[in-house]
């Protein structure tokens, strides 16, 4: 008789797996992460997200979130919602229009559709990101790779976002256009897109939560990635306690538009009794 033919045996077999390691997994508690970044205080989230997979978390205001493209072919598709108030969410159009720039990088504020800041980009060593092309879809991935369903070898970002959203009480209609980090697009003078690909292994971007936010991340190939093969490598996700941007910080006053966004956010949080 096999060892797992009884409930006792099955339980023992399952329990014996504790402590196993995979390349892509969350480390719980996060403070057990083997190689914490120097700038990190108390780690609150430590995870390696597999290529073609997703993750999600609620982060308190002031938390810093560092995404790292470990092997050079991660692409972190990202959505942000005000935690508990998902009708306030990332607005990509406002983000690029209000800040007069189509590209993402250090100093960019990720704006909600309420004239407030959800998060800010406080560091960026990759420099190749995209706010225009969104994520991939079931239809397109099925055309390109043969399948785009979540259980397939080539899941579409939108399908993974639907799952991450559902786990936060949100529906497909709650998925607005998303951002992508680590796989970039350049706009030519005539408006045409040029895919820049990745900056290579080890690039990282650090976001700072300026409100309590729900973060959804899908790690899948960029929709404009021209390669015929589905190439998606692990994404490292680390978050630690830090401090939200304050009056007097250089970022607060970096632009008049940003200063008004921080002021609006501070007014809102003060009125709510949250800051």
């Amino acid at each position, binding site marked *: 008789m096999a060892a797992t033919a009884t409930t006792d045996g099955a339980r023992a077999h399952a329990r014996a797996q504790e402590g196993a390691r995979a390349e892509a997994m969350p480390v719980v508690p996060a403070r057990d992460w083997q190689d914490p970044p120097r700038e990190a205080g108390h780690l609150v989230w430590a995870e390696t997200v597999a290529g073609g997979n997703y993750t999600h978390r609620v982060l308190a205001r002031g938390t810093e979130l560092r995404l790292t493209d470990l092997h050079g072919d991660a692409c972190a598709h990202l959505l942000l919602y005000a935690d508990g108030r998902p009708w306030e969410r990332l607005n990509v159009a406002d983000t690029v229009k209000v800040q007069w720039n189509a590209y993402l990088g250090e100093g960019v504020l990720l704006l909600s559709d309420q004239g407030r800041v959800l998060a800010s980009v406080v560091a960026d060593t990759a420099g190749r990101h995209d706010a225009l092309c*969104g994520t991939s879809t079931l239809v397109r991935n099925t055309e390109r790779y043969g399948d785009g369903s979540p259980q397939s070898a080539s899941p579409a970002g939108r399908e993974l976002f639907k799952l991450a959203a559902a786990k936060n009480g949100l529906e497909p209609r709650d998925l607005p*256009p998303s951002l992508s980090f680590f796989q970039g697009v350049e*706009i030519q003078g005539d408006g045409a897109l040029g895919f820049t690909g990745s900056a290579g292994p080890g690039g990282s971007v650090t976001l700072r939560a300026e409100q309590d936010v729900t973060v959804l991340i899908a790690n899948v190939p960029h929709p*404009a990635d021209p390669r015929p093969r589905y190439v998606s490598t692990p994404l490292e996700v680390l978050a630690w306690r830090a401090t939200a941007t304050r009056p007097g910080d250089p970022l607060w006053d970096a632009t008049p538009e940003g200063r008004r966004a921080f002021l609006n956010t501070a007014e809102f949080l003060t009125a709510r009794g949250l800051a």
Partner: protein
Amino acid sequence: MSTKTVVAARASWSSTVREGETLTITDLHGNQAVDFLVYDAHDTSVRYSAPDTIHAQGGIFLTTGSVLMSNEHTALMTVTADGVGRHDTVGGACSKESNTLRYGHHTYAQHACVDNFLAEGARYGLGKRDLVSNINWYMNVPVEKDGTLGIVDGLSAPGLSLTLRAERDVLVLVSNCPQINNPCNGFEPTAVRMTIDGADAA
């Protein structure tokens, strides 16, 4: 069969456009931004996606031949004629809140496109979660080499028009943009005309 409606300056408008029918938007006085959202009429969770449209056509400007893609990467409408040559799908809609960032808090009392979309969408049970980055017909948003972008003087002129063919039954929401703080309306919003022509009349 043809129906014509003049949408007053600052006002909203909506209609179902059946598969095969065309919608012609005429810029009666020139340089008027027409903010535009489109949904599958039978399943409004399938709606216009700026990013899918941009990467499907490989560029950010909309003109003849551009297919307006849904968030499920299916075709909603196709631009079949365009007298202007360039329209925006990056800048999204003005709102009272974003106006406070763009111009200052003194603009908060001014009417804005998001309010038009919310008011018009409510007639169909659509709410804030149903608003996404939209098209701005007749609005000119160039992007420079370093990514700098901005709304600049329009390329349109009085009487120019564009025509869209519905690839399935769609619901269209329009905000005839009331913005008065940037060049998208020449600082003076004006009326536009919506014409729906039946498939047989095309």
